[in-house]
């Protein structure tokens, strides 16, 4: 449940110290909302048994019915101020941490104008360093400040590094927007929640509601009316509530996850925001369903009868069935997600479930707020080297037990002192133990060499073909514009190489009047003409660099050289960079034809549509070898392929894949003929150049003894069993791993996963970003199914299918995808369902599984029967491997909204802007109508399809044209008109854009537009010539399952 926003507003002010503080702060309306609180406490009273149990234990399932009695008890109103934690205090030896002086904090929160997040403050990095020691928790700092800076503020004292906050902000307006988003997000949620409370007629609930409602109102938020309507029809609610939880718990669960930010993380950037945001509403439903309809999660769905399974708000990840105290500390699912939120006890059980077990990570995601710890000793387990994390247990003040290998470790002396509270002897309240996501400033033991400077090398293809496309103009222009925004410091180095059949170097020595070009024509044995002055300090030679960028596009306009010696150019670039490491950005427009690494065209256009005999494997190992050399020297290669013809991306892509770079592909790029691609390149380049970057990184993923990782997906090189070598790490890269249960986990109830990413920031600091995820272990198949995370499963399956299509064949991969659905559903049918009903019975958690798999089958990577170019298919596969889950899901199953009748009903209110929240539609043409306009959000593109008979109102008020025929053929912007409709549409679209770090381009599509095919291709529920419709697919599965 991505609701990171919550802590932001509520928990944060309490600052990291009080993780529990955050919990206790839940008394305040801003965090978890009073209702939950009441429920929580009630729950506690109901099932005391488990309070006293320690970390490991989690509550036994309580039948749904009990919930109501509990919530109906009148007394709970009072309990809202009581922090739930206090209930747990007694036994809390292990994970429970006594609530500390968090109360004052909450007080301050209340009084402050909290909900309104002052954007400017938080945005401004300069504000970072706070006077050391002056910081009294919660007392004098306005919440917004804390929000962003609480860490640093304590910093000087504790050595917490102030920079933390400044860093995320670097990515400019993205953050800003996300900020807004976050802040706005949760209030609405609460509202919803409150509403639900009212509707559900719990006495105390309503009382509570009043209270908090006022407060919220005071904070300037509007309650969302829309929800009330929904309440009665709760039977259809989307809630993801976890059935086996005790009632009260359930309620709180979704918010708390969201709130997991107790760790005070706000996730500004796109994807999660994406899932998260709309959900204010869904949350409501979720919590409501938790309130009164436990059954929903337990329900078995007959997909053949209930067709409309797609929730009207974006799907949220399921909440692990954990004790709420633990769950609150858990890592945000946007960063770290497991396909099964309940880990099966044994491999046999896992095999029985036929669901893949794996993790999906987005470890370097831009975070608005990230606690950063600077301390001389980083506390780690002595045997498995796990970083201390919120899920370790403290045996006593001096010893802690590792949650991964169960070794008992000593608490070092320094760790006894808590710099935030300035109390000695509270190791369990240190930020390291209060945050599942944390960043350490690494001391010198973590460096093999002094941190490298940021080094950027650009390699341009300047052959005739390249000049023809005219890409140099836009790239050089983007570079010029963003030269000052390149992440770096005074040590930043930059260099340029161009190549056609020869390699050209540019000497940018300080003092030269103009850049000097050096040509090396010996491509058999490449050498560097002059070792220094080719990579120069950006600050010192900025003028020369600008000179070069201005002249470069004109220099080759008359070239007749058609050959491309990419291989030798890459070798030269590698030689140039190998002493330092850094980032190499390669622009290529055709198949390399000269020297080492020359490739031959392999695509046979006639066989494009058949699933057989296509070349998905690289044709040479040159690029792979070079990539591994690069990886060894900490060089990452990012490939921009702008090519009209086949360029063998399968081979070329290896250079990025194994050096942890990224691939961008612009088919048929041309500066005049294809303005859409030009715009796309500019936007993506802008993001690419300015986004955060980590150099010479390694990532290690550890998991509790008994689990082991056996396969890795993503762009990197697996250097040793669990060590991923990432010469560069960027915030837009996602990773996935598959796991198996090696030893039975019967004697443990919780398992943890920890990913630690060690990198050098562009400021030259060595940092370690640690994420820890904790999940329960279950012993029955039913629980495994209930905890399945359908999005994560689909994402992991997509990764596995890419591997399969490369090692075996595309049709194998497609079969494997279908079999994955069939196997798991028949396992469910045969082992879990007691009575064999007709129809296709699926657990509620997997109700979208067939749909997502069908969407995968129709995705560009795996589709058959269309004339997809080989390069495009391979690019789509690269994207599957390299994208974070949220974007992957958006590209496979885009969101469709109807936008011609947007209203303020149910709208979010962010910073005085009203953002309408239209419901999600199924991806079927039947949902489209000629008299409407529909927006499809496919992650990296937005498509606005305007029907032929679309209302005049929409045309004139939003598109600013008089009639349908006047809509331009290529329209990528909406005019800002002074009408409420236009304002709403633009607000909605910009809100969607704000949620992601890059800038999705909007295409306005009318009937004759060439883009229409793309739009319709995404209608995955419909039948195409070569693929089944959703219903047919379900029938097929049913047939197989019932066999």
């Amino acid at each position, binding site marked *: 449940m991505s609701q990171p926003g919550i802590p932001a507003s509520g928990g944060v002010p309490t600052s990291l110290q009080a993780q529990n503080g955050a919990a206790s702060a839940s008394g305040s309306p801003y965090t978890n909302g009073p209702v939950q609180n009441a429920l929580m406490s009630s729950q506690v009273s109901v099932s005391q048994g488990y309070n006293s149990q320690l970390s490991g234990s989690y509550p036994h399932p309580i039948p749904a019915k009990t919930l109501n009695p509990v919530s109906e008890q009148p007394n709970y109103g009072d309990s809202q101020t009581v922090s739930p934690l206090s209930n747990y205090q007694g036994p809390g030896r292990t994970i429970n941490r006594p609530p500390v002086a968090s109360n004052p904090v909450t007080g301050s929160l209340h009084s402050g104008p909290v909900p309104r997040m002052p954007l400017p403050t938080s945005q401004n990095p300069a504000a970072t360093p706070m006077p050391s020691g002056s910081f009294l928790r919660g007392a004098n700092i306005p919440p917004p400040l804390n929000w962003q800076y609480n860490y640093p503020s304590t910093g000087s004292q504790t050595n917490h590094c102030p920079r933390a906050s400044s860093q995320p902000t670097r990515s400019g307006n993205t953050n800003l927007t996300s900020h807004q988003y976050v802040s706005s997000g949760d209030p609405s949620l609460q509202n919803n929640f409150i509403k639900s409370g009212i509707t559900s007629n719990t006495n105390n609930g309503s009382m509570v509601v009043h209270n908090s409602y006022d407060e919220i109102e005071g904070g300037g938020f509007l309650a969302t009316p829309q929800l009330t309507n929904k309440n009665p029809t709760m039977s259809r609610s989307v809630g993801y509530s976890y059935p086996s939880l005790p009632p009260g718990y359930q309620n709180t669960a979704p918010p708390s996850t969201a709130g997991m930010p107790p760790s005070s993380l706000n996730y500004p950037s796109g994807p999660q925001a994406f899932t998260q945001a709309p959900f204010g509403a869904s949350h409501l439903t979720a919590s409501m369903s938790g309130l009164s309809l436990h059954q929903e999660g337990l329900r078995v769905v007959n997909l053949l009868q209930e067709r409309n399974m797609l929730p009207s708000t974006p799907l949220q990840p399921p909440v692990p069935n954990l004790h709420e105290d633990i769950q609150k500390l858990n890592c945000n699912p946007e960063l770290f997600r497991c396909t099964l939120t309940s880990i099966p006890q044994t491999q046999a059980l896992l095999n029985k479930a036929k669901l893949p077990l794996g993790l999906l990570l987005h470890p370097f995601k831009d975070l608005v707020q990230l606690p950063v710890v600077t301390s001389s000793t980083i506390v780690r387990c002595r045997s498995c080297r796990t970083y201390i994390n919120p899920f370790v247990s403290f045996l006593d003040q001096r010893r802690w037990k590792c949650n991964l290998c169960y070794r008992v470790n000593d608490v070092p002396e320094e760790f006894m002192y808590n710099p935030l509270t300035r109390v000695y002897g509270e190791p369990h309240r240190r930020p390291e133990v209060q945050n599942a996501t944390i960043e350490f400033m690494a001391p010198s033991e973590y460096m093999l060499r002094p941190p490298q400077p940021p080094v950027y090398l650009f390699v341009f293809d300047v052959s005739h073909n390249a000049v023809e496309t005219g890409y140099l103009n836009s790239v050089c222009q983007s570079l010029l514009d963003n030269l000052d925004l390149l992440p770096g410091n005074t040590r930043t180095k930059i260099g340029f190489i161009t190549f056609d059949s020869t390699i050209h170097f540019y000497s940018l020595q300080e003092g030269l009047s103009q850049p000097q070009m050096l040509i090396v024509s010996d491509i058999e044995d490449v050498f560097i003409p002059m070792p220094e002055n080719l990579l120069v300090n950006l600050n010192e030679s900025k003028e020369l660099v600008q000179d070069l960028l201005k002249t470069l596009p004109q220099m080759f306009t008359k070239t007749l050289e058609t050959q491309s010696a990419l291989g030798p150019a890459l070798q030269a670039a590698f030689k140039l960079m190998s002493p330092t490491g850094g980032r190499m950005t390669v622009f290529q427009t055709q198949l390399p034809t000269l020297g080492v690494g020359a490739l031959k065209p392999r695509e046979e256009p006639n066989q494009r549509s058949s699933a057989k005999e296509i070349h998905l494997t690289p044709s040479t190992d040159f690029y792979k070898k070079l990539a591994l050399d690069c990886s060894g020297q900490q060089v990452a290669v990012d490939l921009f392929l702008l090519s009209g013809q086949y360029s063998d991306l399968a081979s070329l892509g290896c250079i990025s894949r194994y050096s942890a770079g990224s691939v961008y592909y612009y088919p048929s790029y041309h500066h005049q003929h294809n303005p859409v691609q030009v715009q796309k390149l500019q936007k993506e380049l802008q993001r690419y150049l300015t986004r955060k970057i980590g150099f010479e990184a390694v990532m290690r993923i550890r998991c509790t003894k008994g689990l082991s990782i056996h396969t890795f997906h993503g762009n990197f090189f697996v*250097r040793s*069993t669990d060590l991923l070598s990432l010469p560069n790490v960027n915030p837009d890269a996602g990773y996935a791993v598959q796991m198996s249960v090696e030893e039975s986990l019967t004697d443990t109830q919780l398992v943890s996963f920890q990913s630690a990413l060690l990198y050098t920031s562009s400021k030259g600091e060595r940092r370690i970003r640690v994420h820890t995820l904790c999940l329960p272990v279950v012993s029955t198949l039913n629980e495994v199914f209930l905890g399945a995370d359908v999005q994560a499963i689909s994402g992991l399956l997509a990764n596995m299918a890419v591997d399969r299509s490369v090692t075996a064949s595309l049709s194998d991969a497609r079969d494997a995808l279908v079999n994955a659905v069939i196997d798991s559903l028949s396992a469910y049918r045969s082992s879990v369902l007691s009575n064999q009903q007709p129809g296709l019975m699926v657990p509620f958690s997997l109700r979208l599984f067939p749909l997502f798999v069908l969407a995968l089958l129709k995705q560009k990577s795996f589709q058959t029967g269309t004339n997809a170019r080989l390069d495009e298919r391979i690019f789509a596969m690269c994207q599957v491997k390299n994208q974070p889950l949220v974007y992957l899901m958006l590209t496979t199953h885009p969101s469709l909204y109807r936008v011609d009748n947007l209203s303020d009903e149910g709208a979010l209110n962010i910073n005085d802007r009203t953002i309408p929240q239209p419901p999600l539609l199924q991806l079927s043409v039947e949902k489209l109508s000629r008299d409407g306009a529909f927006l499809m959000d496919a992650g990296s593109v937005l498509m606005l399809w305007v029907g032929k008979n679309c209302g005049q109102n929409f045309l004139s008020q939003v598109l600013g044209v008089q009639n349908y025929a006047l809509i331009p053929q290529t329209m990528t912007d909406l005019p800002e008109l002074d009408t409420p409709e236009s304002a709403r549409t633009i607000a909605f679209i910009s809100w969607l854009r704000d949620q992601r770090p890059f800038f999705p381009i909007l295409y306005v599509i009318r009937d004759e537009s060439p883009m229409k095919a793309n739009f319709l291709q995404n209608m995955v529920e419909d039948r195409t010539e070569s693929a089944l419709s959703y219903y047919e697919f379900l029938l097929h599965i049913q047939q197989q399952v019932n066999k």
Partner: protein
Amino acid sequence: MHQNYGFRLFKVDHNSRHAAPRRRGRRAPVSWDQGLSGRVGVRQPVLRKKRRRRRRRRRRMEVVVFVFSLLDCCALIFLSVYFIITLSDLECDYINARSCCSKLNKWVIPELIGHAIVTVLMLISLHWFIFLLNLPVATWNIYRFIMVPSGNMGVFDPTEIHNRGQLKSHMKEAMIKLGFHLLCFFMYLYSMILALIND
């Protein structure tokens, strides 16, 4: 017990080194020898001499074959052990995937050739049983080598080795080969000793 595994299973060849000594002790079979001596009695001693010489040469060859196989087998055993050690080093993180794979890939072809030579040798020297025993392993070696995808850096690919349990399967394979070579080693040793004794 016959040391010549393949031979007796398929046909009784009187030229074989087993048959020869026995026949000598028994006196030559009547019908065959008689008929022969009756027809070309004069040439008998020459023929016997020649045959004996041939036999002796064959026996000497046999010794050479098995001594060579034994040495080859020793080398293969060492190679398997080396594979196992290197792979387990990788498993324990003592070396990185890249150096491990480049080390191992270097020895894939020598291993393949070494094994193929023994196999062919057994075929030539008509030791059918040993040949058939070796054949599947040799075929597997060749198949594995041929089936390496064009983009991979060899049988052991550093980028793949940690995926899909490849490391484990390589390890298993190396173990099985070690066992196989050990078995072969003792077989060759036995055969060699027998051949020496018979000589």
